[in-house]
Every structure is written in structure tokens, then in C-alpha cells.
């Protein structure tokens, strides 16, 4: 009985989403190849960001709402390469190199703050995101072009300092996604080359009944796969084991000689740096940087996706990440159109999608807290020796 309850509780969220999607996909009227193409693009775009959440969860620090700090660091890196006019893969690498030290500093700061707020890491990291957002805006809006040298007039506001709201990332747009041009097609044989939009693309495989060609962001997927391998390996290292021990119980970890505070800071630093790379990958796919808004939704959408994939505040796997990306973004794609076809108002689908994102986070947090309190109560009872109530 208990097992069935747990099974349902653990997988209720993904199940509900599968059901919603099952209804919404036919309503939207999109073709299969369109949906697959969109999903592949979004997996490439978002997975890395979501994967960066895994390590703090492992260390028992909950959902790292502070990942937006990393996103901001990545954006600062991108602003610099835009100013210097470095394009292509070297541009992306350079952006990562610039972003890394900023992300490390922010991560250390975040880690120290969270160590002071044990037990309420999530709300603290959430507010910290807002706080650093203020600092970021101050830097980008007032200091860049004034104290920090930015000279490219295409980047600066007409008043001479401060960065424009929309920055075109044309120089690095899609460079990683299209590094190895690959498609899936329904018409021609596998193993051949096909010219798609002027670029010669390798036909990876052929699926019958598929209409048109689906472009695969192969290099991005390879990077993501490598990163998954890294996480699997990292869990087995000494540091990873320490983090898991801390995630189980801080006091036990402390008495067995694990430097709890230091390890927690490392977990947050890793997460922040990875979020920085994740944001760079995300923006190279988007192709434009909304200087003051791009990072705003990053944390919320990544966390919602992870939770929809069946993760909880204390337990998340790589499988959760991919299930979450697919389910969340499937809804993202179909909800507005389904809403329009169903009620005649696209705005409702739009609001529904926002509501679901927030609602799912709320429900997951509630379920987690509820379960934890119940377990705590049960542990206390068993300590007293009478299991059947007080």
C-alpha cells in the first residue's frame, strides 16, 4: 500500500502532463515532424541549463534558484565577445572563458549566503537571484561603456553608456547547433549528403512516412551527453560521495569529517558555472540576447521542467531532466494553439502555460515539505517506541 502510494506520488506529475499533452497535441493540429523538430531544438537549447540544477539537489540544497547568477555571468561573457566581434566557436569558447571567473565568484558568494541560511536555501537563493539581478542591471545599464570599456556603438544606448535592451548574437547564432550539420529525412537514403539551406547536411538516418527534413543539433547534443557522463562520473568521486552524504544528513556528514560548508559552496559553484555555460548554449540557439530579461525566466522554466520530469526537491536524475524537457516544452509548443482552437483565444493558452509552470513548482514544493514533515513525525514516533500514534 505504502509502495503504491509512493509510486503514484513520485510519478503523478509526469503522468498528468502526458495526459494533458495527449489531449492537446491533436487539438493543436501540428504535424509530427514539426513537433519533433521543435522538441529537438528545445532539448538542445534547455537541457544543459536544467542539468546544472542536479548537483545542488544531490548536496541536499534543494532547487538552486540561484542558477540565474550563472546565467547572468554567461550573458556578460556574451556581451564582451559581441563588443570585440569574436564570432563562431572561438566566440562561444571565449564567452565561456570570460563567464567562468564571474560565475565562480558569484557562486562562492551564493554558497556563503546559503550557508548562513541553512534550512531555507531555496527562498534565499531565490531572493539572491533578484538581488544580483539588481547588481547586474546596475553594471550593464550604467557601468558598461562608462567604467567598463564597451565601444561598439551597436551595443551601446545612444546616450553613450549602458547596453541596449536587445543585442543581436548573429556572430555565434547556431554555431554549436550547426557545427555538424545533420538531418533526418523521410525521402532519401541514409549516409548521403543533402543540401539544406545552402549547407551540406549529412543524413543521419531515414525514417519512412516522415515529411520534410528534421535538422538535428548534433554537436549540442554531444556536449549535453558528455555533460551527463560527467555527472554520472562525478557522483562516484570522493567529492560527489561527500555531497550525497551531506544531502542525507548534514550532522552525520559533519561528524564523519566531511567539511560540510565547503562542500556545499563547491556544489553551488559548480552549478553556477554550469548554468553560465548553459545560458551561453541557450542564447547561441536563440540568436538574440534580451539584456535585461533573458535570464529572468531561466531559473523558473528550468526548475519547472525538472519538476515536471518527475524530480523532487531532494531527488533528481538525468532521466528526470530529459523527460521534463520533453513534456514541458511539448506543452509550451501546443498550449497556445490548443487554447486558440479550443476557446478561440491564444492568450488563454499562454496564461495556462504560465499557470502550469508556477502551479507545478508550488505543488512539488508542497508535496516535498509534506512528505518530509510526515517522515520526521514518523521518525519521532518510532524513537519514542510506540508506532501506533501518540
Amino acid at each position: 500500500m505504502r509502495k503504491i502510494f509512493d509510486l503514484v506520488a513520485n510519478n503523478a506529475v509526469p503522468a498528468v502532463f502526458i495526459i494533458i499533452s495527449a489531449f492537446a497535441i491533436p487539438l493543436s493540429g501540428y504535424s509530427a515532424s514539426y513537433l519533433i523538430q521543435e522538441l529537438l531544438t528545445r532539448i538542445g537549447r534547455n537541457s544543459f541549463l536544467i542539468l546544472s540544477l542536479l548537483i545542488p539537489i544531490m548536496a541536499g540544497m534543494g532547487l538552486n534558484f540561484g542558477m540565474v547568477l550563472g546565467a547572468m555571468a554567461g550573458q556578460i561573457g556574451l556581451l564582451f565577445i559581441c563588443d570585440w566581434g569574436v564570432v563562431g566557436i572561438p566566440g562561444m569558447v571565449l564567452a565561456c572563458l570570460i563567464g567562468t571567473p564571474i560565475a565562480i565568484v558569484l557562486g562562492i558568494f551564493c554558497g556563503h549566503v546559503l550557508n548562513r541560511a541553512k534550512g531555507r536555501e531555496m527562498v534565499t537563493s531565490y531572493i539572491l537571484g533578484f538581488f544580483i539581478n539588481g547588481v547586474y542591471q546596475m553594471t550593464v545599464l550604467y557601468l558598461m561603456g562608462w567604467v567598463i570599456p564597451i565601444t561598439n556603438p551597436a551595443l551601446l544606448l545612444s546616450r553613450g553608456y549602458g547596453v541596449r535592451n536587445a543585442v543581436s548574437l548573429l556572430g555565434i547564432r547556431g554555431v554549436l547547433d550547426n557545427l555538424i550539420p545533420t538531418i533526418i529525412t523521410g525521402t532519401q537514403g541514409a549516409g548521403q549528403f543533402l543540401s539544406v539551406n545552402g549547407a551540406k547536411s549529412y543524413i543521419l538516418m531515414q525514417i519512412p512516412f516522415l515529411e520534410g527534413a528534421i535538422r538535428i543539433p548534433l554537436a549540442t547534443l554531444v556536449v549535453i551527453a558528455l555533460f551527463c557522463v560527467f555527472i554520472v562520473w562525478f557522483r562516484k568521486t570522493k567529492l560527489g560521495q561527500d555531497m550525497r552524504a551531506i544531502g542525507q544528513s548534514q550532522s552525520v556528514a559533519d561528524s564523519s569529517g566531511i567539511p560540510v560548508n565547503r562542500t556545499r559552496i563547491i556544489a553551488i559553484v559548480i552549478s553556477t558555472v554550469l548554468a553560465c555555460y548553459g545560458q551561453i548554449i541557450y542564447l547561441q540557439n536563440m540568436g538574440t540576447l534580451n539584456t535585461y530579461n533573458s535570464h529572468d525566466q531561466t531559473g523558473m522554466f528550468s526548475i519547472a521542467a525538472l519538476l515536471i520530469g518527475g524530480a523532487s526537491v531532494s531527488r533528481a536524475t538525468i532521466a528526470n531532466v530529459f523527460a521534463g524537457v520533453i513534456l514541458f516544452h511539448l506543452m509550451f509548443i501546443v498550449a497556445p494553439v490548443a487554447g486558440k482552437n479550443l476557446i478561440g483565444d491564444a492568450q488563454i493558452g499562454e496564461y495556462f502555460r504560465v499557470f502550469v509552470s508556477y502551479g507545478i513548482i508550488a505543488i512539488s514544493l508542497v508535496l516535498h515539505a509534506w512528505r518530509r514533515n510526515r517522515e520526521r513525525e514518523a521518525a519521532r514516533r518510532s524513537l519514542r517506541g510506540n508506532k501506533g500514534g501518540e
Partner: protein
Amino acid sequence: MIRRFIQNAGWPRIIIALFLLGLFIAAPFVGVRVDTSLSNTLVRFGMNGVMVLAMIPMVQAGCGLNFGLPLGIIAGLLGATLSIEWNTEILAWLSGLGTQYKISWLNDMFVTAWREPLGFASAIIIAVPIAAILGWFYGKLLNRVKGDEMMIATYVGFSSVSFMCIAWLLLPYKHPTMVWGYAGKGLRTTISVEGYWLHVLSDSLALNIQTDDIHLYIPTGMLIFFAVMAVLVWIFMRTKTGTAMTAVGSNPEFARASGVNVDHMRTVAVMMSTILGAVGIIVYEQSFGFIQLYMGPFYMALPAVASILLGGASVNKAGILNVIVGTFLFQGILTMTPSVINSYLQTDMSEVIRLIVSNGMILYALTRKVRAGR
């Protein structure tokens, strides 16, 4: 003694108070009128005061800062929009009541003369029960998630706001000043309260001196309303229920041992917070002049939370004085930075300063208690 004062007040508070003082001193030199700024600060104080007051019960009952304030705000928005939707009916019903029960003063003339205050009162009367019901459920929810209240409150607020976004589109409102003109349905994003209850509190008994030398405007009515609400909360916190509530907040185990129903007290506190939030937004709207729907209430909890913390409250202790000092400081900075800093630097830094001050303050409070506990 000075050191003790600094310790009691806390560094961030002193820095911000000095900053505000500096802004007031600097104002005349950059051509900003001190009296106008002071009037604006007072108006904003009155607008936001009740919403900050809404933090007290939950903090005192140990539920943490009410990041779920948008829930109360939604109740207030429902009250406000319904009071306009049914304005004619309510007034007609009132004068009908007078005729029916032979109350001589409750006649058409009275109702027409007092239609604005009556409309305002009806908004509050509709909003309070809605807030009480929502608050009851919200309180029950928070009782199940002890220890994680603040994060969950945040997301309860967010999800209720985004849920209401759908509701505002679908609810069968009909009043022509409120729905979209071309579609005839779905509420507009901002609704003017002009002609209904614009400035009913602000302009009653207001002191308005506009001469060549002095531009002073004091919204006496609104400040009195805030004072009445503050006194009510103050009295309530000293009744038996209020004392029990404080006991629950400071030591739940002890409170339980002395026979206080912890969960019940917490629910009452959450309901009170939600009701005060609902009343607070209506006060805000009558002064602001517009009802902001859809994503309007989304981030409204943060300024209120930051204000009370700025006033010296902590995550588990808050009083009326914290509300008054904090709201004045916070709104003072919001009023003064755009005017003073803009005339000095020729740029608008107010948004950035607001972000840093309010969230920095919340961060400070969240990280402080742990250190004190160790």
C-alpha cells in the same frame, strides 16, 4: 550606547536611513522641492501601509514573511472589480433598504451624495469574506508544510496570480468601463476607478496647500485609515488570541504544552494577513486611481516584505513600529531616488536601487536569524 543603538537597529537600516536623510538634504541643491517630496512620500506611505501591516500576523505566528500576499491582493481585486460591476445595484439596494425599513436618512439623496464612499466600502465588504475563505485554505496548506512556508507562499502567490489571469479573461464581467471595448468581454489590464471611489480616502480631510512657496499635500483621510487599521492590529495582538498567536510564533512546543491549538492559531494569522492584504490593495487603488489586473499583483509582495524588514522586523518578530518606520524609509527612498538622483546624474536609477535595496534587505533578514541562533 551608540554601539548598542547600532546593534539594535542593524547596519543596513542605518545606512539606508542616512542615505534617505542625505537625499532630503541634497534635494534643494539639485532643484527638487523638499515639501513636494515629503508629500509624495506620505501619499505612498498611506498607499502601501496596510499591505505592510499584513505581514505582522503571519510573522508573529511563526509562518515567516508573507510572500503569498498576492493571494490577499487577488481577493481585494475581486472586491474592487465587483464593487464597480454592481455599483448601481448596490446603491439602489441601499436606498431600497431605507424605504423598506423606514430609515429616514438612508434615502436616495444620501446614497447619491455618498456614492463614492459607499462604493469603496462595498469593495472592502465584498473583498473581506473572499480573503477570509482564500486565507483559510492558504493557512491549512501552510500548516502542512511547516519549515518551508516562505518558498511555498511565494509560489502560491505566483500560481494564484497566473490562475486569475485566465479567470479575468473568462469571468462574466459586463460593465462597459471594465471590459475590452471591441470584444465586450474579458477585463482590461488597468481599470480606472474614477467616478467610483477615486481618492475617497486620500482627499477626505486632506490638507492641500498649493501656493507659490509651499506645495504641500497630506492625505489625512488615508493616513487616519492606516492608523485605525494599525491600532486594530495592535489591539488584536494584545488580546488573548493575539498573545496566543505570538506564543505559537516564538515557541510552538511551549505554546502547545500550555494548551494553545498551534495549527488553529496559524490559520487565524494567515487569514488575517490575507484580509489585510485585500484591504491594503483597495486602499492602494483608491489613491493610485487604477485597478491593475493580470500580472499586476505579481511582485507586490516583495516591496511589502522589504518594507517591514527595513523597519527592523526579523523573520520571526514584527511590530507596528517596524511597519511605520519601514514603510516610511522604503517609500521615501522610492520617492526620492528618481527625483534627486535623476536630476544629479540625468539617468533613472530608481528601478535598480529599488531592486538592490529591497532584495538586499530581505537577504539580510533571511541570513541573520541563523547567525543569532548559533
